[in-house]
């Protein structure tokens, strides 16, 4: 395992993202219970857990698609203040469009399957107010290029693309506006193992080049291990353990984490 010896990210004093004490119930089912999470600028937070652990609900909250019953959410960014869960629909939409990027496991959630790939990326910039066709075109091309998407398929609709390519379009769309926060919901689940490795490479490279703060949710420890600096383990709507990635993988404390890690290794 290679260690990058940049400035330790943990030294930063103010987290970029802070979620405090969020709880959310769907009828009798409590999906998330008193969960708190934070991520420092440039850090990659991995959230691991099995399906039904509440990890995806938490991620959707970070994208303001889901508003919890209780709890708060702040992003330490210029022009952004207060509990983001309290924003009105308009402010929420603008914030999501300009500051947060997301890649879903299911590309249908993130993409217009019959529009061009470049158009999918350009829409982000259009929402943010870009009105020059040439600029849109160039920005979309650059974002797709950064996601290692083949540029000869620039205007192909996602519906005609492979799963891995669709994820690259989602990724390009997510990073087109250089968001402060990139959310990844099982971005490689369902892809062939070889394709999965390529997409992970791209994500890793992007992270190193751009120092984007990322939150990645996965049930796959391998994915988390490849990308995350810090890991949160969730089970039945609660956080059971949290720590630096190495720590979690080398020396898991909670029995559930131990079980997970050992099952994997």
């Amino acid at each position, binding site marked *: 395992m290679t260690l990058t010896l940049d400035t330790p990210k943990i030294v930063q004093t103010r987290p970029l993202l802070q979620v405090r004490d969020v709880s959310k119930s769907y009828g009798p089912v409590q999906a998330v219970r008193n969960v708190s999470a934070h991520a420092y600028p440039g850090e990659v937070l991995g959230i691991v857990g099995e399906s039904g652990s509440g990890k995806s609900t938490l991620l959707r909250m970070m994208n303001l698609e889901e508003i919890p019953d209780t709890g708060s959410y702040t992003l330490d960014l210029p022009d952004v203040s207060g509990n983001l869960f309290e924003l009105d629909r308009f402010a929420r939409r603008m914030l999501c469009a300009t500051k947060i990027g997301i890649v879903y496991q299911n590309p249908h959630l993130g993409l217009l399957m019959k*529009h*061009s790939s470049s158009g999918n990326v*350009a*829409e982000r910039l*259009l929402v943010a107010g870009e*009105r*020059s066709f040439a600029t849109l075109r160039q920005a979309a091309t650059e974002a797709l290029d950064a996601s290692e998407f083949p540029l000869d398929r620039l*205007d192909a609709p996602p519906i005609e693309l492979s799963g891995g390519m669709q994820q690259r379009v989602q990724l390009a769309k997510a990073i087109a506006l250089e968001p402060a926060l990139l959310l990844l919901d099982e971005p490689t689940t369902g892809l062939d193992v070889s394709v999965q490795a390529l997409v992970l490479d791209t994500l890793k490279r992007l992270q190193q080049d751009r120092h984007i703060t990322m939150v990645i949710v996965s049930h796959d420890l391998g994915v988390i291990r490849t990308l995350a600096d810090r890991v949160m383990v969730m089970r039945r709507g609660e956080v059971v353990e949290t720590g630096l990635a190495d720590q979690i993988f080398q020396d898991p404390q909670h029995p559930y984490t131990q079980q997970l890690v050992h099952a994997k290794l």
Partner: protein
Amino acid sequence: MSLSTLTKPWEAMSYGFLDGSAKRELRRKMLKSVAVPGCQTPYASREVPMARGWGTGGLQVSLTLVNPQTRVKVIDQGADDSVNAASIRRFISRVAGTPTTMDTLEADLIQSRHRIPEEILREDQVLVLQVPNPEPLRPVQPNMSIARQMHADADYGRMWLQLYEQIVRSGRVMQGASYPSLVHGRHVMTPSPIPRWDVPKLHMAKHLTILSAGREKRIFAVPPYTKVEPLVFSDVPYKVEEHGHLTCTRSGATGFFMNEIPQDDGSSAFEVSDSEWGVKTIRARDGEGESRGETWYKDGEMSE
């Protein structure tokens, strides 16, 4: 109180067909739509003795605005003598006793289906445009309740994306008529299916334009001196139909929006679409006097 105080002497029909409560609602909704330019205001839209989709929205506005002195002009696809224009004109004058005219300059109120006359309208004139589909977002969002929310949020990303996609696919914006336009910098509206040629005439116009969709029950307005900007990318200019160089085979008028008439030999002849402008041009040519007013387009170009 007795029944006789609750009723009034029997009349076959109210003045202008619509009863007082219908007109009151329309006046209120018109005021509202003038106050919020380009924003679609829902209204009850009563049934009138004409099929939905045949100008019932425009008709309700016209019937509410007219008095027995209002000089009414009605056009359909640019022509005063088109069958439906004739029918509407006849109806308005039958139920409201209004004088009618075909001369744009003489008209106080012009109800039109899909054209704005070529002569510049004045501050004392009202243009009523019939609207089949008031929702510019319909192609990207057919659900009316969601579309309404998108207008509230000025959420027009999809609208722009549509233009982007057209340029990518066809090399140009393919929108023909009903070119979506931003009104007063806030609401995107459809100017009704007028050709692109006519949209610039709405921008900072002196006259009031009321757009009314009877079937879809929405009314909206462009008040005088209001910005109407077609949605265009900053580096892909708005293009009106290339009619500036065409000449009308009947009147010899050049530089106006034309109807194309296919010929037996495979070619096309052109006739000026604003029929009254054609008539005036013929009169001038035949020495019957000049009656033409100032036009928005000069030498086939929109003048500043």
